[in-house]
């Protein structure tokens, strides 16, 4: 069982069935998201609050709080994109082993702290 952080694009890609997202690969792992990703999900899909089915979907994930500490770190980098930085620092704050994203620029980083940046979870065992 590993601690997997889902970047916003991957998280939303799951529910909007974007190619290359894989629900099965998450089986038995702990899946983390930034609370910022929920905001994006709602606007992309024009969801009105309250929505029981969406709430139930979100409830399967561990939501990382967007704190002042994470924001301050994100304001300093490591990329020029604040939202990406918030996602990265949220993963670090949660001690996630893996950061799942489809963002090509982020994937070039390969690692952020102890999180390995990858685009898909393979069947290989993940340490953690």
């Amino acid at each position, binding site marked *: *069982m590993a601690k997997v952080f889902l970047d916003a*694009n991957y998280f*939303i*890609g*799951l*529910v*909007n*069935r*974007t*190619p290359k997202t894989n*629900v*099965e*690969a*998450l*089986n*038995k*792992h*702990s*899946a983390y998201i930034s609370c910022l990703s929920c905001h*994006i999900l709602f*606007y*992309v*899909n*024009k969801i009105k609050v309250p929505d029981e*089915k*969406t709430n*139930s*979907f979100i409830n*399967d*994930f*561990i939501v990382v709080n967007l704190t002042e500490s994470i924001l301050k770190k994100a304001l300093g980098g490591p990329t020029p994109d604040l939202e990406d930085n918030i996602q990265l620092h949220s993963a670090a704050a949660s001690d996630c082993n893996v950061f799942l994203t*489809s963002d090509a620029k982020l994937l070039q980083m390969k690692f952020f702290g102890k999180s390995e940046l990858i685009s898909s979870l393979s069947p290989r065992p993940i340490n953690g």
Partner: protein
Amino acid sequence: MNGLYITTTELRTKSAELVSLLAAGSDVNLVHRSQIIGRVIPKDTNRIKTISAKKLQRKINKLDFPRLTAVEIDRRYRLAMMEKHGQGIS
């Protein structure tokens, strides 16, 4: 916060109580020279949710949101922000 506190002096003599409170999920304010200087919070080790892929897939199927590419997701989000906050937001 629920009003619990421990002084820096008491850290030496009441660490067992602090551990019990943290294990029970309470936050504890840290007081030094009559001022609250920080907060000791429990590490969130008990809340370990794991994904059941079958259950999650059922929820995704029930939601039945449109199939979108990453580019379309990005476009929809930008449009939504422009609608909400006006032109000029990119």
